[in-house]
C-alpha cells in the first residue's frame, strides 16, 4: 500500500475523499485493466449505511486508478436521487460522493425496472447516471473481474 493510500485510509474517519484527487478517467490499461462491479440493492439514509459503504469501495478503487461501476437495483436506485437532502436527519449528503465518483471516471448504472416500480424516472436521478434494462446486467457482470454486493 502506498504511503498516500495508507494515510488516507486512516485519516478523516477513514472516508475516501476523491475531491482531493486529480480528475481523470481510468482507462482499460490502468490497474492491470481490472474492473469491479459494486451492486447496491439497499436504500439510503435509513437503518443501514450500505449505500455510503458501497460508494466508499468504489472511491477506493478509483483512488488506486482501477475501474469501478456502481449498479443500482431494487431500493438501491434511491441512492442516486438528484434531489436527496438528508439534512433534517442530521446525516451528510451522499451527492458529493456521487459527483466525485462520476468525475473520477466511475460509472453508475440504474436498472430501469427498479426505477419504474418505485415511480421514478431517469430525470429523477443525478445527471450522469445511466439507466439500463435488465438485459444489460449480464453483459456488465461479464465485463467486470469481480463483484461485491450491498
Amino acid at each position, binding site marked *: *500500500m502506498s504511503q498516500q*493510500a*495508507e494515510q*488516507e*485510509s*486512516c485519516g478523516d*474517519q*477513514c*472516508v*475516501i475523499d476523491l475531491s482531493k484527487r486529480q480528475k481523470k478517467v481510468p482507462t482499460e490499461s490502468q*490497474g*492491470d485493466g*481490472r474492473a*469491479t462491479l459494486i451492486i447496491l440493492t439497499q436504500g439510503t439514509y435509513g437503518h*443501514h*449505511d*450500505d449505500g455510503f*459503504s458501497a460508494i*466508499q*469501495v468504489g472511491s*477506493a*478503487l478509483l*483512488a*488506486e486508478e*482501477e475501474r469501478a461501476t456502481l449498479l443500482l437495483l431494487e431500493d438501491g436506485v434511491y441512492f442516486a436521487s438528484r434531489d436527496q437532502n438528508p439534512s433534517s436527519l442530521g446525516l451528510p449528503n451522499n451527492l458529493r460522493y456521487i459527483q466525485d465518483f462520476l468525475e473520477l471516471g466511475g460509472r453508475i448504472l440504474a436498472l430501469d425496472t427498479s426505477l419504474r416500480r418505485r415511480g421514478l424516472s431517469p430525470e429523477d436521478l443525478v445527471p450522469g447516471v445511466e439507466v439500463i434494462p435488465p438485459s444489460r446486467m449480464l453483459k456488465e457482470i461479464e465485463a467486470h473481474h*469481480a*463483484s*461485491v*454486493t*450491498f
Partner: protein
Amino acid sequence: MAKTLTILLNRGPYISEYADLALKVALKAREKGHNVNLYLYVDGPWVAHIKAQKPYSNAGQLLRQALEKGVQVKICNRCAEARDVVAGDAIEGIPLVGLFDFTEWLRESDKVLTFTG
C-alpha cells in the same frame, strides 16, 4: 492448486445467518487448502466483538477457529469507529484497517463472495 477467496461480510451476528455462513465457508475453504481473506465491513465488525466463550454456537467462536486455521481477518476502521468498536474490543489478532486493504485483497483474489442483505 490453492486459490484465494476473499469474503466480504457486511452483517453482524445473531440477526441473520450471514455471519455464521461466511465463517463456515471460510473454514471449509481453508480445509480444502485455499487462502482465505475475511473483511468485516458495515455491521461485520460486531462479529469480532464476541470475545467471551458462550454456552451456545456463536460467530465469535467460529471467528476464533478461522483465525487459528489461518484465515486472514481485517476490520474496516471507519465502520468500527462509527460503532465505537475499538481495537481492544475485538478478538486479538484482527487489525483495524482502511478500505485500501480490501481493494488489495480484491486484486489478489480468484473469487470474491459477499454476505449481506
